[in-house]
């Protein structure tokens, strides 16, 4: 369960950053991204997939979250 820091890049894309792994990738797709549901499976720019617990509302970015590796 790496702790992941999410931040917005200047072009509006979400960046997925894991300090311990030096991993900084863009998020290509997010399973749920609507005002009442956020999270689920994410696919990164390099093709790897992670899972965020589903939240009731989109969180305020930047934020550190726990992600599960799929």
């Amino acid at each position, binding site marked *: 369960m790496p702790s992941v*820091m999410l*931040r917005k890049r200047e072009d509006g894309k979400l960046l997925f950053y894991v*300090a311990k792994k*030096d*991993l*900084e990738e863009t998020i290509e797709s997010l399973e749920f991204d609507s005002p009442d549901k956020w999270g689920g499976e994410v696919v990164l*720019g*390099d093709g790897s997939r992670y899972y965020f617990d589903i939240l009731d509302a989109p969180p305020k970015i*930047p934020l550190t979250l726990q992600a599960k590796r799929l």
Partner: protein
Amino acid sequence: MAAMTREETEALIQEVLEIYPEKSRKDRAKHLAINDQSLEKSNKCITSNRKSLPGVMTIRGCAYAGSKGVVWGPIKDMIHISHGPVGCGQYSRAGRRNYYVGTTGVNTFGTMNFTSDFTEKDIVFGGDKKLAKLIDEIEVLFPLNKGISVQSECPIGLIGDDIEAVSKQKTKEHGKTIVPVRCEGFRGVSQSLGHHIANDAIRDWVLDKRDGDDSFPTTPYDVAVIGDYNIGGDAWASRTLLEEMGLRVVAQWSGDGTIAEIENTPKVKLNLIHCYRSMNYIARHMEEKYSIPWIEYNFFGPTKIAESLRRIASYFDETIKEGAERVIARYESEYNAVIAKYKPRLEGKRVMLYIGGLRPRHVIGAYEDLGMEVVGTGYEFGHNDDYDRTIKEMGNATLLYDDVTGYEFEEFVKKVQPDLVGSGVKEKYIFQKMGVPFRQMHSWDYSGPYHGYDGFAIFARDMDMTINNPCWKNIKAPWKTETTSAEPEKAVA
């Protein structure tokens, strides 16, 4: 020698790797790469931030060097205790030339060495009592210090001393910030982890000290310069440009910096990161906790400076944007004169770099402004994100080498034959004896500053006086030169 093609570079790498035993060859091959600008991600071509192989000559430092030497050391009004045996502190004392203003030994302590001087007794019975006594002594002898940091050396972690408990106890007694830093040298693979540990210590023990205290008057133009260590006065040369364009620099991290500046940093509007490698952790933390955006900038060479000033200005209103243009215009004639003077002497010269932190990619622009070409670059302790940022800066088919060994670097230089090598003091004399012009780029070879427009003039002068120095023609002993003059030398009485 013309630029090398991909195949030639590949062949060169293979040739250099030949000498290693098979297992090491396989490992080292991952750290040597040919630059390919079409790649977006460096992990496709190069591996970095891995343990160095036993037996090779690595140029890396340790976690203590990263924390005490780089991040904490330059904070001038704190006393940094090298907690452990005397050598680590003494042999690294004042070597980095982080300039500062103040009276050393009275209100600033940058070039001094404070150590608990561990002996066998302390290893056997523990050194916490000694540390407590040391802190008390510091309070008596140097009452104007604004805080103390305890920088652990290897034995502290090995014997399991509780420096946190001592620090908390003494903070209560003396009412000053006392920060325990767990930067034992054996942690991690290089000084890079020391930077991270130091950043985390600042985050946990210093940064939140003034949360909820609004007595510090702020302006909409407050910025902090982060990751500029004021080597030879670099931070001052950067600061003047930012102030000239109308920004207010609240804090310098950490060259010529104070603990008060660090505590005030969460009140700024924008964090400016120069050394990404050593300070990105704290910038990311401040972005998350205090919603302060951060950007990287580059103050080497007029092209990159103008680019950076405009980028910084884009975060502010029109007055700052005008200010940026005004600053660029003001220095235009100055830097054009520098280029006009030195470019004809340096045009077409080829440079190989091997440094740490930000310079392997940041100085490329400055060399290009002088018409020079960087044909190889590498990081001592860079991570993947550093190489991501380097790929676009370097030309195609140039060499990239991560944690290069002494042997590889020498061989590369012999084969590529650059006109200048820029690296650290450990490599300096090897290359000078080989007859290759060399600049020590860790602390600007006792020169500087190199940042900003003022620094660029000094940078250009230094490169010229190194490359075009007449001494390089006299490297070979006179009786070994083939073209001896026909006329025998006249004896002088």
